[in-house]
């Protein structure tokens, strides 16, 4: 499998919502660590991040984005056949957040609704999942809600966002080409080791240890192997991009914009340089929105490509990659779509 094509599927619109609360990676850092932090920021390219209020979940952001999108598209709630939420920060471990949102959004009980557990690679996989349902003729209109609540004050990388993408059946819509891959041998590269069924949360997981800088770390914290993730990203993504272009019969120069998951500047710049792409065709939102996990592709589209996608037709290559390990590439043409500015909530 890996490579595939879907026909008659149209991206009707995209809306992205971020929390109002802004964190500065420089200003909010203790003065004693300022010099080290400035070097880090220079390399990861992330100056500001968004973080949810304590009461706020990813789904609250996605709800705002979806309501705005449905209003702007003038789609009735009764028209939505499927609602798929792709997140790794659901409201509860069970039940699915998508089912809760079916009710909160006022969608019909006949709506297909469930969650998919993917992170940074979510967007191309989600387009393929819902696109397949639409291309088969089984459904006509669908919503894909992607994002995560992954920001913490301490970590300088991650940022919160919730997004909504509207897809519909449209006879004759340009084909979407996909290259989707998974490598479970690298599952430890990014992992929350505690809280699942392999290692349920226990009392001792709540006891932190102090590192040489005096910072506290909990056994239940996210583990991220920076070297493994860097090597995975800069080796696999450029190859996948070239493979997808060859499969689709599309030249590099035919693609108007390459929108990659916003991992960090070091990774994204290396991918861009390896593909010999000019900066103007590779929009980035790392500086202002950080790494918003699976939401970073739609957030970047909302923030940087609103005008060209609303007013004309553009060919995009979308590349998601990360936790799993999982990486997917998609070539899609978007024409006169309803793209909303980034919303704050």
């Amino acid at each position, binding site marked *: 499998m890996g490579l595939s094509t879907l026909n008659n599927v149209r991206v009707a619109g995209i809306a992205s919502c971020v929390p109002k609360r802004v964190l500065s990676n420089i200003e909010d850092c203790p003065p004693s660590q300022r010099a080290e932090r400035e070097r880090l920021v*220079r*390399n990861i390219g992330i100056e500001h991040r968004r973080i949810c209020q304590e009461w706020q979940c990813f789904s609250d952001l996605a709800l705002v984005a979806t309501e705005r999108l449905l209003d702007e598209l003038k789609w009735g709630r009764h028209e939505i056949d499927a609602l798929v939420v792709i997140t790794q920060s659901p409201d509860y471990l069970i039940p699915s957040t998508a089912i809760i949102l079916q009710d909160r959004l006022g969608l019909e009980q006949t709506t297909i609704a469930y969650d998919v557990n993917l992170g940074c690679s979510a967007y191309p996989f989600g387009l393929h999942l819902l696109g397949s349902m639409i291309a088969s003729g089984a459904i006509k209109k669908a919503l894909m809600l992607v994002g995560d609540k992954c920001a913490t004050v301490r970590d300088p990388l991650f940022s919160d966002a919730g997004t909504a993408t509207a897809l519909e059946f449209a006879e004759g819509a340009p084909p979407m080409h996909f290259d989707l891959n998974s490598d479970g041998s690298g599952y430890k590269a990014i992992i929350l080791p505690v809280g699942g069924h392999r290692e349920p949360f226990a009392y001792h997981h709540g006891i932190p240890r102090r590192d040489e800088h005096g910072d506290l770390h909990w056994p239940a914290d996210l583990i991220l192997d920076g070297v493994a993730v860097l090597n995975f990203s800069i080796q696999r993504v450029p190859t996948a991009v070239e493979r997808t272009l060859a499969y689709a019969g599309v030249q590099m120069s035919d693609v108007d914009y390459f929108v990659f998951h916003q991992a960090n500047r*070091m990774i994204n710049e290396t991918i861009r340089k*390896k593909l010999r792409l000019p900066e103007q065709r590779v929009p980035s939102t790392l500086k202002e929105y950080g790494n918003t996990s699976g939401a970073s592709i739609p957030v970047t589209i909302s923030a940087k490509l609103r005008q060209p996608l609303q007013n004309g037709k553009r060919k995009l290559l979308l590349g998601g990659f990360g936790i799993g390990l999982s990486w997917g590439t998609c070539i899609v043409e978007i024409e006169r779509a309803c793209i909303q500015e980034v919303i704050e909530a």
Partner: protein
Amino acid sequence: MPTLDAFLENFLVAVDFQEAVEVKAETKLADLPEWDSLAALGVIVMFDIEYGKTITGDDLSSCVTVEDIYKLLGL
């Protein structure tokens, strides 16, 4: 293979140290105050972009001096 001098120049750019520091072939990595995981990532990227060579974290862990990293180019 590039000259050692050219490599050292690229190395200093890649590690992006805040404080200027003199680096020679025999300089021990452990003696560089800012040799850390970020510097290691920079070196991995440099190997890929400048020299078209993939190195791993284990490759770097086995290096004691800057020259040991330079020698990875010849492997």
